[in-house]
């Protein structure tokens, strides 16, 4: 137990990296995923097919393969990213594909009559998105998206495999020094759990907040 407590400052550094990676991945995938999700629902074929292909392809690859590909594979094509940014890029690419599908499902759950009515009063495309479609779709979007966010936090542990000292690798480094795996893995697990438990409580609060929107 003492070792676990003494190692806390070092674990704290790792935790910050985990949070940083997760936050970047969540933010990047949210923006690109929602825009591409809109593209896949409303875009012409030239927009639809590349997004469809991307989403299907990426979701069919294990995320670890993606991480190794970006870190070890891309330098062969002349693109050198350090471990941290390679990890962020790979995880964000992966998460984006999921956000695309979540956004697509949420948008398509809105009855087409809503779009008809919004067009009929003269709203432009982005006005219809902003004032009519998104405020209703957000209720369908949030629960699976928070799931995806917690997945992103958990999935970020994989970046330890290319040497990014996140919470996971910090735990392993301490274990390497102290040969006391149990207390450290338990500590690590508790921290991951607390992050994700906070996120899902937040999600339940948000769901209640949007519950008044009924079709």
């Amino acid at each position: 137990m003492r070792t676990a407590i003494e190692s806390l400052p070092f674990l704290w550094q790792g935790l910050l990296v985990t949070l940083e990676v997760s936050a970047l991945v969540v933010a990047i995938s949210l923006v690109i995923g929602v825009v591409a999700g809109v593209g896949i629902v409303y875009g012409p074929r030239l927009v639809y097919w590349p997004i469809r292909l991307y989403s299907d392809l990426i979701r069919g690859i294990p995320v670890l393969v993606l991480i190794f590909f970006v870190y070890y594979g891309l330098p062969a094509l002349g693109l050198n990213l350090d471990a941290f940014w390679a990890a962020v890029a790979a995880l964000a690419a992966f998460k984006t594909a999921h956000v695309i599908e979540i956004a697509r499902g949420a948008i398509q759950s809105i009855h087409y009559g809503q779009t008809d009515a919004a067009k009929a009063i003269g709203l432009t495309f982005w006005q219809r998105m902003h004032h009519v479609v998104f405020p209703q779709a957000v209720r369908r979007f949030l629960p699976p998206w928070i799931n995806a966010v917690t997945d992103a936090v958990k999935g970020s542990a994989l970046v330890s495999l290319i040497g990014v000292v996140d919470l996971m690798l910090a735990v392993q480094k301490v274990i390497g020094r102290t040969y006391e795996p149990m207390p450290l893995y338990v500590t690590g697990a508790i921290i991951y759990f607390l992050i994700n438990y906070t996120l899902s409580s937040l999600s339940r609060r948000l769901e209640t907040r949007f519950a008044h929107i009924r079709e």
Partner: protein
Amino acid sequence: MRPLSEPIVRVRKVGKSFGEHRVLEAVDLDVERAQVVAIIGPSGGGKTTLLRCVNLLETYDEGSIRVDGVEVGYRDGDGARRRPRGDRELARIRADIGMVFQLFNLFPHLTAAENVMLGLRKVRGLPKEKARERALAWLARVGLSDKVDSLPAQLSGGQQQRVGIARAVAMEPKVLLLDEITSALDPELVGEVLAVVQQLAKEGMTMIVVTHEMGFARDISDRVVFMERGRIAAEGSPAELLVRPQHERLKTFLSSLNPIHALERSE
């Protein structure tokens, strides 16, 4: 320039197909200012599709639809070479064409007042207070002064549809399209909605009304159009078409409507 005599809505030789299925065939229709035209006919006859083409919720493949002299679906140009209009141009055209829907299509996340205000603020550019003022005035006109801050889910069907009408007319459209606006209502709620429309007609609102209520069509319209299989099969005054129908299919259609004839009920 539009000749002074051009009708506010001018439909010429409009045709449309869904794949192999021909839904509109060489449709001609003129609607003059302050005129009310009722479109009747069997389901699948093209009534709703024609109405939705007028504000381009559906595209038309052939022919021309002009509202107040402006071609709705296409930029200038002829035949196969004409180009579809972009999003912003369409939005501008649609802002002047009101529409009320069979299933109301109120925005469920907005109150009655906010439903009416959305177009006033974002399309007409009115400041919030001004938009609310105008929205409340229209909601009062349709008898909903006590419901302005209710969400659609808290309103009855008839009340929702009256909000739908207020939302459309608050934009002060050049023409109002009504798409079977009482079909989804319980029978006892139909009257309150039709009364509002009747009042609008009296005040000179130009309207195209797709309806299954023959009594309503007869009372409100200056002209009745009978559509069947994508064509206008008969056209004339309400008296000519509904009281003394000559057209064979129209007779069959009218007598099939209800065992107790809708016309007799309203007489």
